Structure formats: C-alpha cells, structure tokens
C-alpha cells in the first residue's frame, strides 16, 4: 500500500524540529532513516499529518569517546555502527547485534535513534541498550532529559519519549576489563524480526560472572532483564543451578502468541538462549547438558 497524504518539513536545526513537534504534538512524526516509520505509513498503521524530516541534522550524527563514556548520535546509521572502530572496541555487543538487524539495504538508512524511539519489542537495539546500561538523551522545549534504558521502554511501540521531544543521543559506559558479551536470536530468515533473542553484557572473572546483564527481546512487550538471571551472578554455576535459573526464567517471562510462534515456544526458546548464553560467557559448553531447557 501507499502512505496516506501528509505534509513534509525538512528541518535544519534541532530547535526547529522541537518547535514543529511542540506545535503539532501527536499529529507529527519524526522521520530519521524511515526504515520503521515508512513501512508503518505504507501499511496505514499510522497516518501522521506532518512528517518532520531530521535526516539533515549533522549535529545528531557521530560516535565519540569522552573519558569513560561512548556517545552515539541518534542519527548514527546501523551501517555506521557496524563499521565503527569505536563501537568494535568499546561496545562489541552492539557491533554484533547490528549484523542481525534487517538487511544491508535497510542498515544503510536505519538509525539507532529511530530504532529506539520506535521501540518494537522484537528489535535488537533496544535490548542492547538495556544490556549495555545505556542512558538515552532526549531534548524538548524545556531542555534535556537523561533516561536510563531500563526506564525508557514502556511497552509495544511505547517509550518515555513524549510527542514534543526528540531523541538526541545515547551514552554507554565503556566496556570494562574482563567484559564479555553474547548475542543470539532465532528468526525465520536472517535479518527478520526475532521470534526470541538475547543480548547480554557481562564481566567474567575466573569463570564466574561478576556482573550479568541479559536483555531478552521478542518475549515481552519490551526488552526484559529477568530477575532469574541474578542467581547466576557471583557464584560457581553448576548445571543444576543453571537449570533452576532457566525454569525460573520460564515462569517469569510473559511472552505473546502470534503467527510466528506460540507463547510456550517463545518461553522454551528463551530458556535455550539463557543456557547457551551462560555456557558461552563462562566458556563451559557442557553446562547446558544436565540443564537442557525443557
């Protein structure tokens, strides 16, 4: 289908974008890369009266390291994340995750800010923000707010961002010494939205996870960091312990049914992901044998 009619404004400053958003509120939509917005408009899932194109705002681009923070501009495209030496060095989880985001032609346009503001519960980057303990910077008429990733995602396509605010950048703590990461998703076709996925960041010392931030996606209305995983921190993980944590994970998650998978299949896949994640992070491939997810 084709998008319904709308007015279009290409802005040349963040301030101008904020003026338009303040004036039009919910009737306006921000266009960055358009790789989620345009499909939604073509399918007539949304029909904004005004599209505010921020694609020309160079001030929202770029990846910089300042002291112990990695700052990524909202308009940074997926392909830029993939090719960035800063991302590879300081947030390798993100570089790996991006290879699963859609396809090359879409990664050439899609942006980090767009993906986060869209907040599809099956998309990879929101989960990565949670795993990486990101701070999301948004600006509105009354100034800038800093929102922790854990507070930012509020539900299916819902975030803490108001209709009058613009997502400006994200800040990530630099990967610590002994950090390790894990990323895996199950999808029908490489690049499709996940049926279930896991992005995890950890600190592993002497075979023990000192810190563990596993963010599951496509198994809830937003990326989820399950409490069950805390059982695996700061302790020697045995197959029995992993099995218990995996059972607890299954009870904690509340996935949905859709045409791709049932809730129970998603729950099963999440348990498989947890077992594989812990086995990989701790370098113990045998861990899952006794604790095979059922």
């Amino acid at each position: 289908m084709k998008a319904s009619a709308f007015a279009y404004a290409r802005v040349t400053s963040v301030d101008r974008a904020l003026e338009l958003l303040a004036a039009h509120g919910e009737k306006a939509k921000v266009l960055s890369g358009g790789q989620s917005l345009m499909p939604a408009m073509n399918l007539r899932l949304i029909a904004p009266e005004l599209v505010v194109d921020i694609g020309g705002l160079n001030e929202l681009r770029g990846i910089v390291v300042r002291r112990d923070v990695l700052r990524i501009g909202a308009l940074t495209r997926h392909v830029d994340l993939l090719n960035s030496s800063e991302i590879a060095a300081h947030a390798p989880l993100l570089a790996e995750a991006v290879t699963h985001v859609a396809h090359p032609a879409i990664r050439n346009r899609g942006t980090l800010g767009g993906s986060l503001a869209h907040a599809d519960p099956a998309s990879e980057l929101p989960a990565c923000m949670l795993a990486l303990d990101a701070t999301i910077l948004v600006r509105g008429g009354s100034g800038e707010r800093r929102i922790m990733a854990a507070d930012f995602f509020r539900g299916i396509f819902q975030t803490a961002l108001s209709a009058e605010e613009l997502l400006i950048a994200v800040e990530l703590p630099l990967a610590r010494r002994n950090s390790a990461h894990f990323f895996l998703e199950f999808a029908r076709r490489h690049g499709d939205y996940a049926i279930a996925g896991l992005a995890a960041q950890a600190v592993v010392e002497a075979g023990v996870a000192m810190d563990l931030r596993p963010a599951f996606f496509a198994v809830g209305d937003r990326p989820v960091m399950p409490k069950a995983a805390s059982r695996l921190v700061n302790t020697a993980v045995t197959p029995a312990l992993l099995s218990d944590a995996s059972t607890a994970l299954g009870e904690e998650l509340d996935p949905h049914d859709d045409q791709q998978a049932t809730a129970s299949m998603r729950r099963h896949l999440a348990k498989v992901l947890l077992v594989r994640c812990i086995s990989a992070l701790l370098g113990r491939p045998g861990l899952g044998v006794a604790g095979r997810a059922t």
Partner: protein
Amino acid sequence: MTAPLPISLHVNGERVDAHVLPRLNLADFLREHLHLTGTHVGCEHGVCGACTVRVNDEIVRACLILAVQTDGMSVQTIEGLSDSGEVADLQAAFRNRNALQCGYCTPGMLMAAQDLLRQHGEPSRERIRGHLSGNYCRCTGYQAIVDAVEATARSRRGRAA
C-alpha cells in the same frame, strides 16, 4: 503543506527536476514519473527487496525513502547499471545459470549482488546468502542465484589478476 514540493536530483547521471507530493516514495517516482520500470514494487514495506536501488552509492529500499528525501542526491537504478555495463557479466551469469525465472526479483537481486561484489572480491556462499537475505525470490530457490554471484566473483578475480 501537502502540496507538491520541488526536488532536484541526479538519476543515472542525468539531472532531474520535478515537483512531487510528500507521500510519493522513490520507487513510485522512478516508475511513474521517470518511467524507469526496472525498479519493481513488491511488498511496499521493506521486506522483499524488489525495489532496491542505489542512493548516493549505497543500496536502499526505494519503497522506504520518499522522493522528497532524495532532493540533492544521486540515484542509480538497474537501468543505469545495465546501460553502463557495470553488471553485464553478472547479468550474463544469471542467465547462464538460470538464476531467474519470472524476473520480478532480478533487478533488486542484481543491485544487492553487485553491492556485495563491490565490497568483497571473494565472498563465501554464506556471505552471499547473508547479503541477499533481504531479497525474496519465489522461483529459483536461491541456489542458482548464489551460483551466479559466486561465478561472477571468480571471473572478476581472474580478470583482475
């Protein structure tokens, strides 16, 4: 503000000036306004890859970019790549290996395959499949397409050596 807006861009090296409605996407602009019908329209939401074109030298989905967004940009379509001979060997390899049947996906498939071949001289079959993962073909089962891309990479290496 829903009135037509002026745009000026380059398409296959030629300057194009036009007035377009904001809702018009690039695929429809190319097809309906410029009669460049090699860019196909399949799903219109970024899944099938039939509308793949180059914008500023990078492949994109023409159904997911508005014509107004391409103001000042450079667009290359399958007609441009075909006429310049850039993909002549790839097209021949597709033909030789029966890598097309109905041909609907072929322009997008060629755009994506050529994009890969420009980046990697010696792609593995797995990498070829990965790069073409966003392009649906409902006829061939992909095997012959991967064969054709692999064969083209091999013959280009031979020529470069």
